[in-house]
Structure formats: C-alpha cells, structure tokens
C-alpha cells in the first residue's frame, strides 16, 4: 500500500542501515513569527527524535513553542505569520524543509497526520464525505469504496451506527464525537506518525478519558508513533513513553517518562511538577509556585531563559545558555547545575 518512499530518500545520509534509525529527526529547528513589536523566536534551536511506534510528549506552557514546533514539522506555519528559518526535519531521512510542496503534500496526511485542539471540520459537508476525501486524495479509490472505508473507521473510533452517522454534518455531532471523527480522519491512511496537539483540552474530563483511551487503542492496533503536545502533566504520565519539556522556545529537558517524574533535573521541570494540582494531593494548603511569568520571545533573556524565575540562578546562568547535559539514561537537561545538584529531592 505504501508509496515507494525508500527510493525517494537521499542516499547520502551516510548510515546505510535503516535499522535503529529514528522515524523523525528534528535538528536545530528555528522558527520565527512576525509581530508588530518585532520578531518572535518561537522555536529557537530545538532538536529531538521519535522512533517508529514511540509516543513522545512535548510539554510546556502557552508560548513555549510546542505548537510552533509541530506546525514547522508539517510546513504549516502560515506564510504571512512567520517561517522556519533554520534546521532540518528528517522524516525517514528525507528533509521535509527542503522537499517540493507536492512531495510534502504526499507525506502530510498519508504518512504524518495531525489532530488539533479544536475539532476542525468543514461545517457544510457530511462527515463521511470529509473522511472519504482524505482517502481519495492519497489512494486510488472509488467514491463508493472510500465511503465504505470511512464508515469502517468511524465505527473503529466508537461512533455508534456509523453507516448512518457518516451522513451527518459536524453540527449534529457532540464535541467528543467530532474529536472521534477527526481521529478517524487522521488514522484512516494508517500514518506512521500522528501529531496530536492538545487533542483533549477542549473536552470535558470524562470525554477526555474516552478520547485518550481511544488514541492509545488506535495507536496499539496501527502501531504508529505519536507526538503528543500538551500542557497537562497528568496526561503525559499515563500516555507517553518519553517526554520533552520546552520553555521559552527551547528544549530544557528530555527523559523517559518515569525518570522525568522521579528525578526531574531542570529547575523548571521541578517547579512545574511541584505546582501542578494533584487529585492525590495531601491537604488544603499553599502550592509551591514558580514566581514571575514566561519570558518574551522577542527579546529573550541572555543566558538561560529560565534564570529570571529560577530560585537557584547564579551569575553563570544569566551570562551563558547552558548546554544540554547527559544526566542519566536517555535523560538530558539544559541546566548549568543539573549534575551538581539533586533538583528532585528535598
């Protein structure tokens, strides 16, 4: 079923063996937005990889660059708003930032799919038609066959009486069902990578639980990799295998899920975990808090972006940006004091 993508891959990449190669490798990605008050450096030198079938969560607060990273990967930064100004996005070795638009369109939807926070469906077209359209755009299918597959996928994502409901328009679906329909549309082509940007943020908590369970199930049955973008450390704990924490347009820490929660090394991660309200929290009391607000990305602080809010900041932190240090097995943190001190204890 797959188009012969292996032929399209550049042979110059050095390592001939594809075994152990990441599915997606982002190298030193830089994305800028234009704003009336200046250039916003939304993504400022971010690198990471995702292995086939892996679930990587990107966590951070508003404006940390997590959504800009996802949009940059897919070439979806609106031209009037900004652009990718540097780096590489290697999908199976092919740089998505330098391929032709036509090739990118082939990959997008087919090999890499995306779901957004707000269910984005065309209000004046039937749900079934919208899913068939995606199928027909990438596969040689008759209208009839595409429709049948669309119905099948709507059933798979738990829409009751799918054959009937496929004829509905989006307004006839509830928020949870629209998100299910969107997941059906995203996975209908069995992509290798699903990018989910806050897929449950607009939903009620019991519906959120349903959608997360559905995503895990779909991922298990199709074996795809997932890049989950969220601000919710609770969702990450139950969903992801690896986590990357972003702050001020940069990656500040990455680790397997357990290490991040057990031994957070960056003071920002530590602070974020500390100030998150927990259902199994102890008692009514003040929460530990991170003072101040996230930095402006128009004129970010020199040195460590977190230094102005960091309780442990030294002269060094304000002077130079810390390199990413290896602090454990597949665990890296960008802090000058990551190795010297145990941020996670006390």
């Amino acid at each position, binding site marked *: 079923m797959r188009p012969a993508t292996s032929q399209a891959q550049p042979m110059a990449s050095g390592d001939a063996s594809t075994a152990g190669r990441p599915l997606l490798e982002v190298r030193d990605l830089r994305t800028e937005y234009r704003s009336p008050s200046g250039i916003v450096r939304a993504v400022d030198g971010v690198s990471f990889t995702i292995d086939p079938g892996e679930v990587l969560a990107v966590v951070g*607060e*508003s404006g940390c660059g997590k959504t800009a990273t996802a949009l940059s990967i897919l070439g979806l930064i609106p031209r009037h708003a900004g652009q990718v100004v540097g780096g590489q996005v290697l999908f199976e070795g092919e740089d998505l930032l330098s391929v032709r638009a036509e090739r990118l369109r082939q990959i997008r939807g087919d090999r890499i799919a995306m779901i957004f926070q707000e269910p984005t469906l065309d209000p004046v077209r039937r749900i079934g038609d919208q899913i068939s359209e995606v199928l027909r755009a990438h596969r040689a299918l008759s209208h009839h066959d595409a429709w049948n597959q669309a119905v099948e996928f709507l059933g798979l994502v738990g829409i009751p009486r799918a054959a009937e409901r496929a004829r509905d328009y989006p307004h006839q679906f*509830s928020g*949870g*069902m629209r998100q299910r329909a969107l997941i059906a549309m995203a996975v209908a082509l069995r992509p290798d990578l699903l990018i989910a940007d806050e897929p449950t943020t607009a939903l*009620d*908590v*019991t*519906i*959120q*639980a*349903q959608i*997360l*369970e559905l995503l895990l199930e779909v991922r298990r049955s199709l074996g795809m990799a997932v890049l989950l973008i969220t*601000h*919710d*450390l*609770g*969702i*990450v*704990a*139950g969903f992801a295998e690896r986590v990357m924490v972003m702050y001020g347009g940069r990656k500040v820490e990455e680790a397997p*899920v*357990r290490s991040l*929660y057990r031994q957070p090394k960056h003071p920002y991660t530590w*602070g*974020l*975990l500390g*100030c*998150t*309200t*927990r*259902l*199994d*929290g102890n008692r*009514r*009391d*003040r*929460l*530990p*808090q*991170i*003072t101040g*607000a*996230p930095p402006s990305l128009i004129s970010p602080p020199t040195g460590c972006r977190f230094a102005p809010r960091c309780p442990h900041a030294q002269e060094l932190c304000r002077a130079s940006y810390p390199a990413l240090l290896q602090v454990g097995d597949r665990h890296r943190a960008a802090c000058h004091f990551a190795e010297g001190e145990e941020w996670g204890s006390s």
Partner: protein
Amino acid sequence: MGELLRVTDVVKRFPVGRGLLLRKPTAEVHAVDGVSFAINSGETFALVGESGCGKTTTANLVLRLLDADAGRIEFAGEEITHRTGKRLRELRRDIQMIFQDPVASLNPRMTVLDIVAEPLVAQGRRRGATGQVAELLERVGLDPDHAGRYPHEFSGGQRQRIGIARALALSPKLIVCDEPVSALDVSMRAQVLNLLLDLQTDLGLTYLFISHDLSVVRHVCDRVGVMYLGKIVEVAEREQLFGGALHPYTQALLSAVPVPDPDVEVNRRRIVLQGEVPSPLHPPPACRFHTRCWKVETICRNETPELEVRCGQHKASCHFAEPRAAVEIQA
C-alpha cells in the same frame, strides 16, 4: 462561624424558542433543577461538574444576575431571592465575582485604575478611589505604579489578579469564583490559587468556587458539591469526597482526572464512562445518571434517589451508594 449563604430548592429553566413568527417556547432547558446547599462563613464551597451541569447558572442565581423560577436564596439570614432596587445594590457590595476569562472580563479600553475603581464609582464612592486602588493592587501582588496601564500589557495571571482586585474593591463577604484558573497556565494557576488562599486567611472571605477540575478543588476547598444535569448528586467535606466518593458519577469523574505520576497511572483502576451527557432539554427520568451508570438497575429508571445523608455530613443521591477512593490502585 455562622451560615452565610443558604440555597434551598432553586430551579432555573430556560425556554427554547422555535418558529419564526410567534416564537413560542417549545421546550425548556432544565439548567438547575432543585439545588440546595449552604456555605458557612469563612469556608470555600465548590460546585463541580462538566459543561452544562448547571454550576455556572447556580452561581448566577446566587449573584442575582439571574432570577430563580422557584426556591429560596438567603444571604446572612436575609431572603434575597426577589430583592430589587436599592437593597439589591447594597447586596452587590457583599457578593462579588471573579470570572473565568481574564481577557474577556476586563474592558480593553479601560486602564487598570478605572477597572478596579469601577465598583467603587458604581456605589458612589469616587472620593479616595485612587488611593484604594493602589492598596488593592498591592494586596493582589501587582505594582501600584502600573495602574495607568491597559489590560493587554499584562500576562494572563496578572490579568486575573486585576479581576481579583476589582472583586475585592467593595470588601465583599462572599466571592463567587467561576473557573478562576481554568484559562491559566500551570505556573500561573498555582500563583492565583495561592493568592485566593492568602486573601481568605487575611480577609476572612467566603468562596463559592465553580470548577470542572477536581485536582484544583482538592487544593482549595473545604466542602464540595458535585452536579450532574442540573442536580447536586453528592455533597461532602473534602476528605470524605476524595477518600471515598459515594455516587457513581463522582467516582467516574474522579477516576477520569489524570494524576501526574506514571507509576500511579499505569496501575490505576479506571472507570471510563460510556456515552455522553444527555441533553438537558429532556433529562432522563428518575436517576438522571442511569443512562451512563454501570450500576444501573430497574429501580434507577423508576425511582428518583433522594440526596440523603449517608454518614456525618456526607450526602449522596444513589440507590447503590458505596465508597470508592479517588485514586484506586490495582492490587
């Protein structure tokens, strides 16, 4: 510590119109359907539930922004359900509100000074307002020198502080907080929650806290009422509710909240509800939760369970109430 607010059997229905010419109401949304609760002076009472459960409508009834169709609302021993005119305006000093959206709830064309002084001006206390605003801003952790700035010059967390300063301007006794931190980032959320706790300690405030987020509720509230389709299905003190919720809906709601701990999440026993909340236009008969409940039996479809005391102050309306911990781990 007397009782400050008592709400008894309040009902609010919204007519839904159909038809072009006559606009006859053809149906009614049962937004709030016989809700009762009381709040003691100095405590925080939370109303929790999902979209459309009627928690915000209940808040608006307490604020007298909406008029109840039936029932009684008493504030400090005085019935206020149908108060109007001068007395209602006086009540507004005692009952204030903090809104969810820190962008939409502040007029972008007004300076912080004008925004925070507005309640004072509305109550005819224009003199000395500038000085009071400076004090209020300091109290909520903002720089009084920034009083001349406009809302867009502040971050989300700071804007919420401006809204809090405005709510404090008339030294209210009760503040209705409608999802005060839902629109904020995690680090801002902790700051605002801490501020609300500090203000309560310093000023002896009473809060009616409306939220959908049970992890937030656990941190700030003394007592909790859980709403489903216009009714309170469970009321308990915080420890009781989180230690052993009795109503299946509360249990499902708690079980759906993710815990930021991978070891807990992996071994957690979850209840994932089937289906979605039925339309409040035609709520299910008898127990309103029976269409989604995994414990449902014939009696649930035929007899409405009363909100009864089960143990101490803990009330639940379920024919098959049994305690369950908020976070249950697999053995």
